[in-house]
């Protein structure tokens, strides 16, 4: 994998997330969630695009049976579960525990949408990460350990009484992604582009000379 990093604007990274999610087969509304979630994560200096790539490469499965909440759709993707969580607008007092979540980092923005303070922890067989988020109109984020875990993780969201005492993560105005990850995301995005043809060029576009 290339170690070269591409610096992007946040909107550029968000637009790529939107197209890649759609290109991977997500519904438009979920692709919108991908854009918002990736942009939010990037704006806190965390690697949103690689997290999305792991989600898309894990594949999207069709929804089956009756669904009642985030736990029933987490098999589809973390974005489906996050959207359901955000829509329902609350986390039970006993917390929410989701098995086998890929791209757990992308859950954080959905929790940040809720008012209150929450711990979000995800654990794989060999790594774990924990963030604390204080939600609301001006969310703050505290991070312990590397949030970029690989593979499916067990994810737990627990209400907390207080936020940590230290300074929250500083905001970032840029996104950074390995060129290799970028190319793989662009390959997903490319599925949303119609092949270039002379007929399309002649009749489909505006502008001439």
């Amino acid at each position, binding site marked *: 994998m290339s170690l070269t990093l591409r*610096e992007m*604007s946040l909107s550029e990274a968000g637009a790529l997330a939107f197209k890649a999610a759609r290109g991977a087969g997500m519904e*438009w509304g979920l692709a919108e969630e991908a854009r918002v979630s990736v*942009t939010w994560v990037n704006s806190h200096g965390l690697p949103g695009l690689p997290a999305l790539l792991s989600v898309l490469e894990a594949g999207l499965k069709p929804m089956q049976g009756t669904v009642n909440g985030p736990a029933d759709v987490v098999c589809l993707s973390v974005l*489906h579960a996050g959207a359901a969580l*955000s*829509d329902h607008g609350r986390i039970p007092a006993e917390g929410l525990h989701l098995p086998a979540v890929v791209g757990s980092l992308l859950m954080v923005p959905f929790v940040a949408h809720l008012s209150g303070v929450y711990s979000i922890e995800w654990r794989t067989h060999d790594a774990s990460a924990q963030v604390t988020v204080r939600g609301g109109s001006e969310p703050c984020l505290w991070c312990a350990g590397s949030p970029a875990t690989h593979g499916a993780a067990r994810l737990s969201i627990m209400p907390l009484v207080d936020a940590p005492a230290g300074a929250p993560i500083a905001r970032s105005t840029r996104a950074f992604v390995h060129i290799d990850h970028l190319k793989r995301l662009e390959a997903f995005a490319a599925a949303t582009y*119609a092949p270039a043809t002379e007929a399309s060029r002649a009749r489909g576009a505006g*502008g001439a000379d």
Partner: protein
Amino acid sequence: MVKRAAPPLADTLSGLRPPSKVMRLERMGCFHASPLSFMRQLTARAVRDDWQFFMADWQVDAQGVGHAVLRAQTGARTYSLVAFFHDLPDELRSDRVIATAWDATFTLFDGVPDEADLTRLAANVPVQEAGRISETELTLSRANRSVRLWEKVVSALANGQQPDTAELGEVGYLMRTTAVYGSGKFGAADYETISTRAEVAAPFQAEMLTVYLIRWAVTELVQHMARARAAAQGTQAAALDPDIARGLGIGNSTGLGMAPFLMTHPKLIHAWVSARESALALVRAQQTPDPEAWALVLTLAQIMSAKVATWRTDHPRQQERDAGFSDDLARIITRLEAGGTTWDTLIDWAETALTLEGQEWLVSAILEPYAAHLDAIAAEMSVPTEAHRIDGQMTVGALKALIALHYSWATEIDWDAAEAQARVWYTSAEKLEPRLGERAEEPVEEYEQPLAPGRDIAKLHAILSAWPEDAPVAEFALANPALRHALRRVQIIAAHPFGEIQDNTIAAHMMPIDLLRAKLSFFGAQRFDPRSDRWVRICMFAGAPLPPDLSAQSECRWPYWQAPWEGA
């Protein structure tokens, strides 16, 4: 930037023309620039805050190849237009997005570029989309010379003469931009990073400043080349007559690339349109118009009448509209000369007596006398973000009521009819150019972009009918992920009703140029000249003083300044 809390919707809409009237494509395709337009906001602020402009660097050879740096000092900050001028063979000159070479390329640098910056920009800006810019750049742009005018102007000036004003009037510009990218495109700084700066917080101010400085650079370039030619041929070059220079704008070719923006930014479009409608309501609420204001609008109508007489277009629909507008202006002048009424009565009269062109021009024109009082409204034209979390606690019944309130126009369309879904918005792999295809004739449906909100919300409406009224929307969204974007849209429009075009954007006879015109009018564009149903040429900053000449007096209502070819 700290935004004022939005007032309750009922108050917001009180006294405004309803979205069902304003947000129709045919009317939007007749919008005119106003004091709230972004070019006007830029020049007004530049005067108010005493911006200074400098030609900081000019390294251009006799053939017009090289680079230049033009600086705008706004007080707290400096912005630098870095311009690269190229020797472009005629056969490569194309206004299409898919072009790969241009006569000139530009970027707006945030600050003062050093040598390393200029070296980096020289490697990236001339190749436009194929290069990368950084957070110190705010825009990326390019322009092509007018083939009809450029050589004639250089030649005339080199021979010590002024160019033919009739020919200048036919075109209106020496160069036309074919794209002005901002807001994070190709690595540039995001709007959010500059949104707290007062001088560029209004919409598209970095882009407008770019174009304003490009116009100055182009004026300098054409005279530079004339001087070089004169030196080579042993003649004495003339300087471009200041009135001619002021009358020339920067052209722009706008195709479908701009159209999706109006559908994908509902909160922003609401902010723009509701600002204009709020300003209109403010003026209409005056019981007795100030006689000076009345006289000013009469003068503006007379000037506009002279200007319209010089407009040329080959597009039959626009020819008809321009002819109607010309007649409208004659009626407006007669009506204003008669006096004795209120702005409110005048607007009511316009709705029965004038074409849409005349109606919408009058809306913009009666704002002119009150331009200085519109700052608070103008400040509401930016929005911090388009992101919107779905309110899952809303009931299905409430959602259905919102659809009934805001989307009856969509649910009344027979979406099974072929003409209702005749078109497909898609993105081509070719430089990611947005295109509009024919659903029945081209294999592009699988690439369709979500740019038909009316259709998608009609579908949402149909499926909602099977759900209990008291079910929370969260449950519906969970079971219907394919309609999530439509559901979100309804909730957005409920709070931003001017954010939705109340017409079918994929109909067989939809005219994309109406979309373009609506957006361009908010930019402050003039001289709309559709070249087909899908792209339009316009002029920007024509009549505006060049940066070194900018003053309170010269800036005042510059769109109504008359060039020598406009009956001045």
